[in-house]
């Protein structure tokens, strides 16, 4: 009787390491994935805003006018948000007593309004308020 000798090698690919590899890939993608984080821009509603605004001197009060949907003016010159960020940071460096007031049209963009509040917060402006276009103090 002829007996065939078995070879030591198997034709099967070992699959036991597959789960490890799959999990390593999964962990890699979980770590690398970046979701755009949600943030909050705080605006303080001051009941004494009217009184505080009246007591400010001309140099301490920075007024931005929001005209139309997305035009921002400072001293009758049109400015963009990047300029305003730099300007506010420089202003706070010179004097910590800076107050920012917005005079916004009704159709002014909500997105830009939040952008302006964010610029003031980032610069360290503690006195931030909104005035009506007629000069009437609103929140």
């Amino acid at each position, binding site marked *: *009787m002829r*007996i065939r000798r078995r070879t030591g090698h198997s034709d099967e690919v070992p*699959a*036991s390491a*597959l*789960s490890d590899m*799959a*999990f390593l890939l*999964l962990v890699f993608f979980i770590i690398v994935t970046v979701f*755009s*984080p*949600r*943030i*909050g*821009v*705080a*605006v*303080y*509603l001051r*009941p004494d805003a009217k009184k505080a605004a009246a007591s400010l001197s001309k140099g301490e009060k920075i007024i931005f006018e*929001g005209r139309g*949907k997305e035009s921002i003016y400072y001293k009758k010159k049109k400015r*963009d*948000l*990047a300029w305003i960020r730099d300007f506010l940071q420089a202003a706070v460096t010179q004097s910590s007593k800076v107050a920012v007031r917005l005079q*916004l*049209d*009704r*159709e*002014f*963009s*909500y*997105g*830009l*309004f*939040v*952008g302006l*509040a*964010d610029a003031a*917060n*980032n610069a360290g402006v503690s006195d931030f308020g*909104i005035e009506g276009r007629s000069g009437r103090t*609103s*929140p």
Partner: protein
Amino acid sequence: MNIKRRRTIGSVISLASMADIAFLLLVFFVITSAIGKKQDQGIRPPYARSQQKLTRDLDFTLLMGRDGILRYEGRIQTPDALAAVIAVRKRLRKDISRVQISGDRECSYGQLSPFLEVLKRGGVREVLFAAVYRKAPQ
């Protein structure tokens, strides 16, 4: 010659399907896990660079969609209705000092301002506007 017969039943458990089982379990838990469901779906928040992270919505959250209509807990609010909501919250001794507003960036300030006035009159001291981080918002 005496030849020993090999047993046909092996005692080794196959591990090939292990990855499939693990992934199925993972997918199951990912789908069923109770991640705090965001209320502001469909609202595209404005861009900001602030460092204040908003990990969870505040208890008192107002939503303003693209249509400019303000909603609280799914109900449409007018300035008077919002004043009533604040009064009820006060009566129930719920916090009204901080309010979160999740608004769409396409809205106008005019749609929001009457409500801000109501919030101020009602005793709200801080409004937190929800935004998404972007390095150069324009």
